[in-house]
C-alpha cells in the first residue's frame, strides 16, 4: 500500500481546441478539450495537463472558459501551463478550476516569480516546467541546459542546477521535458530524468518522447519519475490510459487501476 505512479495525458490547447504538434511543426487536431478530458477521466487518467499554446489574448480567454467547463465535469486534478507570467494569471486559472499551474519561461526571466507564486498560493499548486536539451558532445559527461521557445533558444542555464534552484524557491513539482526527445516517439531521456529525480525531493513528471507503453515504464524504472506525461499515444487511439496502467502494473509498478 503506497503512492501510485501517475499517468498524465497532456493536451496542447490553441483557441479552445486540442492540438498536438509533432516537433512543433505538424499540428493535428485531436478534438474538443472537454470531450477529450472526459474520455481520459473515464479511462482512469490520474491527472490532466493543459498546455495553452494560444498566441493571442482572445485565445487565452477561450482557454479560461475551457478550464471552467472541464473543471465542472471532470473530477481529477487539472494543471494548466502556457503563458503563466503573473500572479494574476495564476489566480485566474485557479479560480477557473485548475488545481495547479505550470510556470516555464516566466521562471527563467524572473526566478523570484516562483517564490512569489508559492508564497501566494502554496507550493502544492506550483509546477515548474523545465525544457532541457543535451549540450555535451559525444564522449563528454552528460550535460543539459535549459532552452526556451520550443527548444530553439538557448539560455546557458544548467538544467540540473536549475531544477535544484526551482525546488529551493518552493516549487511543488517539476515537469521535465527533453527537447531532444519531444515528438520523436523514441522514449524519455532517462539519463536526464534520473539525474534530476535522484537529486530533488519533490516529485518529477517525465515528459517528451513517449512512443509506446514500455517508454512509460522506463520513465518510472530508469528515470525515477513519479509521474509520466504523454500526448499523441493517447490522442490518436494508439493506446488507452487503462492499457498504459496495465502495462505498468504488469511490471510491478504501483498504479491506480
Amino acid at each position, binding site marked *: 500500500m503506497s503512492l501510485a505512479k501517475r499517468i498524465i495525458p497532456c493536451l496542447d490547447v490553441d483557441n479552445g481546441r486540442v492540438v498536438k504538434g509533432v516537433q512543433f511543426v505538424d499540428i493535428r487536431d485531436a478534438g474538443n478539450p472537454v470531450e477529450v478530458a472526459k474520455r481520459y477521466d473515464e479511462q482512469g487518467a490520474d491527472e490532466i495537463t493543459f498546455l495553452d499554446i494560444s498566441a493571442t489574448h482572445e485565445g487565452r480567454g477561450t482557454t479560461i472558459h475551457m478550464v471552467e467547463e472541464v473543471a465542472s465535469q471532470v473530477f481529477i486534478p487539472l494543471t494548466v501551463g502556457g503563458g503563466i507570467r503573473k500572479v494574476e494569471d495564476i489566480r485566474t486559472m485557479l479560480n477557473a478550476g485548475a488545481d495547479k499551474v505550470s510556470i516555464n519561461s516566466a521562471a527563467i526571466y524572473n526566478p523570484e516569480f516562483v517564490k512569489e507564486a508559492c508564497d501566494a498560493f502554496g507550493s502544492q499548486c506550483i509546477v515548474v516546467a523545465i525544457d532541457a536539451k543535451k549540450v555535451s558532445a559525444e564522449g563528454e559527461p552528460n550535460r543539459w541546459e535549459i532552452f526556451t521557445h520550443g527548444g530553439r533558444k538557448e539560455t546557458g542555464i544548467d538544467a540540473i542546477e536549475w531544477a535544484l534552484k526551482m525546488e529551493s524557491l518552493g516549487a511543488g513539482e517539476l515537469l521535465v521535458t527533453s527537447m531532444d526527445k519531444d515528438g520523436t516517439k523514441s522514449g524519455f531521456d532517462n539519463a536526464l530524468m534520473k539525474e534530476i529525480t535522484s537529486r530533488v525531493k519533490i516529485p518529477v513528471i517525465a515528459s517528451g518522447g513517449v512512443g509506446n507503453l514500455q517508454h512509460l515504464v522506463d520513465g518510472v524504472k530508469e528515470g525515477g519519475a*513519479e509521474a509520466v506525461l504523454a500526448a499523441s499515444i493517447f490522442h490518436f487511439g494508439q493506446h488507452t490510459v487503462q492499457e498504459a496502467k496495465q502495462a505498468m502494473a504488469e511490471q510491478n509498478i504501483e498504479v491506480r487501476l
Partner: protein
Amino acid sequence: MDQRLVAVVDYGMGNLRSVSKAAEHMADAQTRVIVTQDPQVIHNADAVIFPGQGAARACMQALENTGMIEPIKRAAQEKPFLGICMGLQVLMSHSDENGGVDCLNIIPGKVTQFDLSSYPELKMPHMGWNQIHQTQDHPLWHAIPQDSRFYYVHSYYVVPENPSTLFGETTHGQTFPAVLSTHNLFAIQAHPEKSAEHGLQLFKNFLSWNGH
C-alpha cells in the same frame, strides 16, 4: 419538499470552485450548494463543507480576517461538517508548520511534518493517489471499497490525541491518520473533489448524512 442548504466556507484559501462543483455534481434537486463568507448563512445551513489549501498560518489568519472562527466552531458542534485537507489540519489544536501555529482546537491533537529520513526514495509533498484504509465503519464510507485510492497533496499530517477519532489511515513511508471523525464532523486529508468516482461518492454520502 424542503430545500437543503449546504454551505462551502470561503475564507480566501482554497480550491472552492472544485469543491463546490463536486458537491453540486452529486447534489439532488432539493439541495443547494453555496459558497459563502457570511456567518449567518453558515449558521442557517443544514451542512457545512470546510475546504482549505496553503499554509497553516495563512489559513488561520484568513479565518480570523473573515470572522469565520466562531461560525466554524459552532457549525462543527452542530451540523454535518466536512473538513478537507487544510480544513482538517486547522481543526486540530496546534500545527508545527510555519514555526508553530495555534489552530481551532476542535479536535485535540497536533499537525506535524512527515519524517522521510528512513525513506530516501519517497518524495515530498506527498502528492498523488494513495489508498485509505478504513479503520472504523462510518456512513461516509458507504459504497467506497476498503483501500480505495484518493488524491493527496500535503507535507504535514494530523495526530489526534484520542485514537477513537481515527477512521482512516494512509501510508507514505510512515502510516499517518488520514481521516478523523467525531459525532457530526468528518474530516479528510485527501481531496475528495479531485478523487474521481470514490471522491464523488464521499460527497454523495456526506450530502445525505444527518450527522449521526
